[in-house]
């Protein structure tokens, strides 16, 4: 018993591993840049980085430098940001809704964001990345609102509606919401887009990093960092929701403002990512679950672990999408779904057993 008593509460798994996270991230970014149709040696990459970032003057093939800096590295950076953001959105939604299946993609938030972005792109309301993101944000919030209201109505319909029932209801509501917004997206495209536009949009909708450049990173990096900061700042609030909103309130959390703020922040971050790369599925579901298994469910550790793993996962998926079929680039959403759907099934089955 004395052993049990002297063990500190929150440092059992320690936080010392945190210092490796930037190293792992840098390693993943370099791997994302090195691996591809034409493999590029790591020392060439380091030379290009030195040239671009430190103003060094190593001689590197101009074409290689172009591929590394303008094409692959920018792409890897945006992939990392998307992975981090979507995974963190999953963590927050799962904690606040107390639902292991909550995820921005499954809950229709990504579909809503797609509709918003497409509406802006096709109707030409404003121009540029920022207005696309704003359209996506409006769509994301609208979709989330509809899905939550629907889930709520479904729950009060069957009475009680806690636990597993609520988990099921929100997924059903998410499917309905996703279908509705996908239909709206298709409607907008068919009605207003030219054939050329339509093809581009359809490809983007499946989640696509092709054509991503540094301009996109200037939006993705601040958005991802914002998402990470919000989650870290509120890590104890997220913990307090372990036993539900009432329990969180009795432990001093101002439930409504905190919950509202977190959800709006995550919808915003998801929307920014969707407006850049389209709807990439299952990241927010798979990564938080895997990380809970490894570091536990306390958000002090879960948030940084998820942020890192999400980034690495999406960089890895991007590498796969570029190399799996030679001469072809698959949409990254195809890879994440191929990995994510079985993981979803696993969570569903395991959840039932508990």
């Amino acid at each position, binding site marked *: 018993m004395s052993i049990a008593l002297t063990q500190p*509460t*929150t440092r059992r798994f320690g936080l010392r591993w945190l210092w490796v996270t930037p190293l792992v991230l840098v390693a993943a970014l370099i791997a994302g840049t090195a691996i591809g149709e034409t493999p590029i040696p790591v020392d060439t990459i380091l030379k290009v980085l030195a040239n671009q970032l430190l103003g060094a003057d190593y001689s590197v093939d101009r074409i290689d430098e172009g591929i590394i800096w303008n094409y692959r590295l920018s792409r890897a950076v945006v992939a990392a940001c998307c992975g981090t953001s979507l995974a963190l959105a999953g963590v927050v939604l799962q904690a606040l809704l*107390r639902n292991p299946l909550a995820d921005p993609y499954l809950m229709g938030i990504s579909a809503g964001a797609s509709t918003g972005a497409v509406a802006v792109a096709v109707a030409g309301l404003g121009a540029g990345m920022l207005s696309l993101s704003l359209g996506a944000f409006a769509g994301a919030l609208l979709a989330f609102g509809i899905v939550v209201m629907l889930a709520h109505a479904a729950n009060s319909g069957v009475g009680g509606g806690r636990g597993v029932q609520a988990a099921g209801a929100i997924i059903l509501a998410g499917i309905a919401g996703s279908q509705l917004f996908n239909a709206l997206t298709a409607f907008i495209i068919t009605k207003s887009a030219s054939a050329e536009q339509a093809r581009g949009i359809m490809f983007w909708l499946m989640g696509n990093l092709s054509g991503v450049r540094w301009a996109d990173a200037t939006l993705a990096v601040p958005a991802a960092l914002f998402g990470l900061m919000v989650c870290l700042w509120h890590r104890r609030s997220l913990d*307090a929701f372990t036993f539900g909103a*009432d329990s969180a309130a*009795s432990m*001093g959390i101002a439930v409504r403002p905190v919950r509202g703020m977190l959800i709006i922040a995550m919808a915003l971050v998801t929307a920014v990512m969707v407006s850049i790369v389209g709807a990439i599925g299952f990241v927010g579901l798979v990564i938080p679950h895997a990380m809970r298994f490894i570091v536990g469910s306390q958000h002090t550790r879960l948030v940084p672990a998820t942020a890192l793993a999400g980034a690495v996962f999406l960089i890895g998926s991007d590498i796969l999408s570029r190399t799996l079929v030679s001469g072809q680039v698959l949409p990254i959403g195809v890879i994440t779904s191929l990995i994510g759907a079985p993981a979803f099934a696993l969570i569903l089955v395991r959840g039932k057993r508990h």
Partner: protein
Amino acid sequence: MQLSAEQLTWAVHGTPLVVDVNLTVEPGQTFGLVGPNGSGKTSLLRLLAGLNKPKTGQVRIDSQPLHALKQRTIAQSIALVEQQADTTDRITVRQVVALGRTPFLSALRAWSVEDDAIVAKALIDVDMAHMADRLWHTLSGGERQRVHIARALAQHPTILLLDEPTNHLDIRHQLSILELVRQLPITVIISLHDLNQAMECDRIGVMDSGRLIDSGPPREVLTASRLQQTFGVHAHVIDDPADGKQFMRFRSAV
């Protein structure tokens, strides 16, 4: 701290759940809340904890109205143990109890050795120290309830609200929890179904249809006629020759 309620009323969808409740609990007292199912005990406790905002009337701690305080400030004085609070997270007993420190921590005020000591003490108080590293989903209902109480104690409340905390416990743990609660030098409001256990409180209040219909020392409140009127049972009160205390024997439903 003194906790008081003035003309407290609360309703959901037009159904009144708490009606015109006036109540004062003195510092250090253990106040028992009894009443049939659906009489409004849980609703009243939620109002007292600041989880719901009363339709009319107000709750005060010392002389301050609760609704004027921040949730965090309230949680530094009042802790609540709900009847049902479960989780599917993989979380250890110690981590659950550590949640009780939430109102004292912030993004900038980190966890300290002091917090570790408070958590360890709370675990000892509810006789769960030996299970500190067990996972939540491996615990029995009674063990979970004790962990929730430890979590509330880790909040270092001056007012502790408990909603039927003995519900899932075996008799030994029922008695030990009640004893623990009575010995705490803080104000306790506890809702109970077992009327004999309620006899051990300093004062009790009887709820019926949302109203607090009687309150006072247990012996004066829990009379044979009260048991018949409010609880619908024929009972009589017997003196225990062993220690001179009184207990009730319930003979039949009315």
